[in-house]
């Protein structure tokens, strides 16, 4: 339907109350009555929920009854419902681009307090849209095929779960992990709440499945370096760090580790959070996947100084897996979707000096205790103080770094349950007295409250109060040689001093130190706290503002294993939904050169950030390739002769919108 003359436009205008979201600050009925008087407006209505089925039906009926050929809806952000209304308009037989949306929620009712002024602003914005929509042209969305492969970044439980779902559906997955092994934080855990099933027993089979899956390309010790393209057609460069060991030749026999010139481990072991020492050549942990050793270039004598007997080479012998000449590799892959599952880091308790972590040796973090309690850990499951003795009393301080305006304001969501789990294990393993210091106990998941009950029945003591300090300042004979926790017990109503052997700090979760770099690399948004931002907190919890880019697990915010797995599944399903459709529709907002007016000055060529403009030397004219054009509009503004125009942003449309906005009532 293309209209011969602007005089033939028949506009339908609809203003949405959004329940009370808009109606509370904007007099919607008055806006509808005002717009009804504007030339070309055939029908103007207000309705409680325009996005609902009856709301959409209202528009469609009017299109048929009044032969409308333009539709304007004043409601929420186009990010939320522009696709909804375009679809509704198209279903009634109108070109979907004969539609214009006005945002009077985020831009008006949610940000203004004065109802009269807000209503006036809503009228002006609506008037501008009505003026603009007259000039809209019939367009068709651009279609591009979707590459069926997916990139998953991060090999923790979220990344592993998403990769396996995609691979099991027959799609190819690239799984990129920064560390030498996949497994992430979950691999460091002993048992998991609330069922106390062993983390390794449920995780390691999945790790092995990833390694052996024909549809998964697993790149550990690798990082994403560059991301180009858009949904369906991403080009990603992955940097594969040299591990100085050939992954295909190494069989994981660890004889090179035995043979290393360092007779004993000397460097803090990352996996055991420094509780044990490793050699320059090491396996990330016993169940590491892949079972391939890695050589630390910062520690290896051969790599650092060139001077070493290289006993590891002898040990490896004919396998020849060790390769000191290995170089960094940069591999380019093409994928249609990307799932980010980069996880979190734990809060550094040095930042709370009152708890004296790093000063008093028996103040440890929950992750350190977790490693100690694990049967395969550095103490083989024994809980010991730094002098080797067994603790008779253990205290857990919750919310270390969390729910604290001086540090992180958010709740880390897992520490209450995680500490209770550790407390139960400590009680079972050692019989020690256990006290948990909390400010609120949060146990809202399935089976979690029952787990809290179990903790109480096991005789674990709970003291409500934020701990003021941990000190070795003994005031009474019972306190001699112990750690003393000073806390205001807010249930008992007085300040207590509680002597303990071991103090465990339940450190909260934080975004990774380089989360901002990752955000920029993938063109995502972050909330103020630094967690990656979902497109909608309820309805698009794993989508981002970039199409084809999904987030799962703790990089989006603190969560436990069940929630991480659920998100990973959702992200995989979102990717599969796009892959299954086979193509994506793009906004036809591309620029085009009017060849009759183009003077061939070439001003536009260097302006285009996407190299979408070519120049025909024989005709002496520029041309925009719509398949590459991203619709940024830079060339349109830069063209001296005004001979480039952009779909959805023609000069007529923009000028009409401005005129409408500034017109007096």
């Amino acid at each position, binding site marked *: 339907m293309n209209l011969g003359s602007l005089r033939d436009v028949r506009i339908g205008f609809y203003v949405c109350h959004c329940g009370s979201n808009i109606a509370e600050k904007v007099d919607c009925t008055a806006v509808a009555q005002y717009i009804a008087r504007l030339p070309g407006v055939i029908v103007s209505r207000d309705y409680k929920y325009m996005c609902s089925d009856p709301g959409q039906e209202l528009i469609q009926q009017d299109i048929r009854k009044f032969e409308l050929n333009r539709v304007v809806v004043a409601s929420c952000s186009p990010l939320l419902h522009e696709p909804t209304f375009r679809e509704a308009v198209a279903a009634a037989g109108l070109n979907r681009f004969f539609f214009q949306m006005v945002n009077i929620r985020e831009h008006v009712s949610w940000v203004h307090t004065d109802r009269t002024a807000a209503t006036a602003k809503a009228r002006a914005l609506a008037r501008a849209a009505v003026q603009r929509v007259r000039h809209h042209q019939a367009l068709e969305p651009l279609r591009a095929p979707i590459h069926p492969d997916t990139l998953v970044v991060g090999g923790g439980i979220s990344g592993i779960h998403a990769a396996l779902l995609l691979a099991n559906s027959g799609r190819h997955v690239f799984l990129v992990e920064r560390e030498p092994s996949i497994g992430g934080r979950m691999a460091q855990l002993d048992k998991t709440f609330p069922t106390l099933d062993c983390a390794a027993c449920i995780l390691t089979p999945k790790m092995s499945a990833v390694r052996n899956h024909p549809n998964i390309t697993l790149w550990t010790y690798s990082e994403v370096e560059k991301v180009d393209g858009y949904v369906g057609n991403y080009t990603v460069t992955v940097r594969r760090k040299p591990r100085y060991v050939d992954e295909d030749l190494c069989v994981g026999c660890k004889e090179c580790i035995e043979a290393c010139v360092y007779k004993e481990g000397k460097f803090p072991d990352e996996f055991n959070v420094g509780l044990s020492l490793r050699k320059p050549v090491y396996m990330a942990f016993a169940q590491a996947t892949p079972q391939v050793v890695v050589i630390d270039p910062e520690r290896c004598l051969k790599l650092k100084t060139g001077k070493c007997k290289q006993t590891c080479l002898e040990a490896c012998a004919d396998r020849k897996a060790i390769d000191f000449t290995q170089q960094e590799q940069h591999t380019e892959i093409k994928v249609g979707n990307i799932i980010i599952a980069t996880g979190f880091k734990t809060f550094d308790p040095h930042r709370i000096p009152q708890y*004296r972590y790093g000063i008093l040796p028996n103040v440890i973090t929950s992750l350190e205790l977790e490693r100690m309690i694990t049967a395969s850990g550095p103490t083989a499951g024994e809980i010991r103080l730094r002098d080797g003795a067994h603790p008779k009393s253990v205290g857990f301080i919750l919310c270390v770094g969390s729910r604290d305006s001086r540090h992180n304001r958010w709740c880390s969501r897992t520490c209450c349950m995680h500490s209770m789990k550790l407390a139960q294990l400590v009680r079972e393993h050692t019989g020690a007295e256990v006290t948990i210091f909390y400010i609120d106990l949060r146990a809202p998941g399935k089976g979690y409250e029952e787990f809290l009950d179990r903790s109480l029945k096991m005789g674990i003591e709970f003291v409500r109060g934020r701990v003021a300090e941990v000190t070795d300042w003994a005031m009474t004979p019972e306190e001699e040689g112990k750690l003393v926790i000073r806390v205001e017990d807010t249930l008992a109503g007085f300040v207590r001093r509680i002597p303990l052997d071991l103090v465990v700090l339940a450190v909260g979760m934080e975004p990774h130190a380089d989360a901002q770099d990752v955000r920029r690399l993938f063109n995502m948004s972050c909330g103020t706290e630094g967690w990656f931002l979902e497109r909608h907190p309820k309805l698009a919890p794993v989508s981002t503002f970039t199409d084809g880019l999904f987030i799962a697990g703790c990089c989006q915010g603190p969560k436990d294993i069940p929630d991480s797995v659920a998100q990973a599944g959702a992200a995989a399903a979102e990717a599969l939904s796009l892959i299954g459709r086979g193509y994506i529709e793009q906004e036809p907002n591309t620029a085009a050169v009017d060849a009759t007016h183009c003077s061939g000055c070439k001003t536009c060529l260097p302006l285009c950030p996407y190299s979408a403009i070519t120049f025909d030397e024989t005709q002496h004219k520029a041309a925009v390739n719509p398949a590459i054009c991203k619709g940024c509009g830079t060339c349109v503004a830069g063209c001296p002769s005004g001979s480039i125009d952009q779909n959805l942003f023609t000069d007529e449309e923009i000028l009409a919108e401005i005129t409408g906005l500034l017109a007096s009532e």
Partner: protein
Amino acid sequence: MKFCYYPGCSLRGTGRAYEESLLAVFQVLGVELQELADWNCCGATAYMSVDEVMACTLTARNLALAARSGLHQMVAPCSACFLALNKTKHAIAESPLIAQRVDEALQRAGLTYENGIAVRHPLDVLVTDVGLEAIRQRVRRPLTGFKIAPYYGCQIVRPYSPFDDQDRPATMDRLLQALGAEVLRYPLKTKCCGGSLTGTMAEIGLRLSYLLLREAAKRGANVISTVCPLCQFNLEAYQDDMARLWEPVRMPVLHFTQLMGIAFGLEPRQLGLQRGIVSVKPLLARLQEVAI
């Protein structure tokens, strides 16, 4: 290097040894202190609690005088003065009402408040401006055998901590180490000494001071170093009363400037050491003269 110098009342009373040693040490280091002419009471903590505007006006007069002196950095050795002066600066900067009332009052005395006066603690000046290396070079008798509990008290770190960590200050630790002393880990370094409670609710005040002394003794200290005249007085003057109430604790409590003076090889009388209540003779006996 020249600073304006605000002694405050303590340094002319119970804290005379602080002033004597401070002036002697600064002279050795070639830092000139020019006493603020016609200075008045800082109001300490008491006046602030009674009438904030009047207290600020009283204190702001000193800052206005300092501005007129042309020296824009003022050294305030007493912790109470240091805090009251800084609190006044903050109050005037944050409250237009207080700023206006203070201005009006000062104008009547022909003075103008200027907010650019930096109020500095001598500890800060010594470590930041003079530097540990220059101090180390002046040491003639390293404080070998001195096991020092470094005690900062509350007022130079709370609520403002312009030059050190609020919970774990370390400036004095580093200074004393530069003098060759053994500085002990003392977790009570910023705990309350009892303040003026020793005068008003003696048993509570004494108990707080006693706990500080007992812990220092338990950790093997043979001297406590302080930055505040009131802390010094509370910790040293009531040791007999404490011995009657609890266990005996006997330990000299010195101003950090006195310890610097000892290390610089200055005469005991120059440092006011004879004014102390607990004898420092056993402590001084540990020193070895190092020929330089």
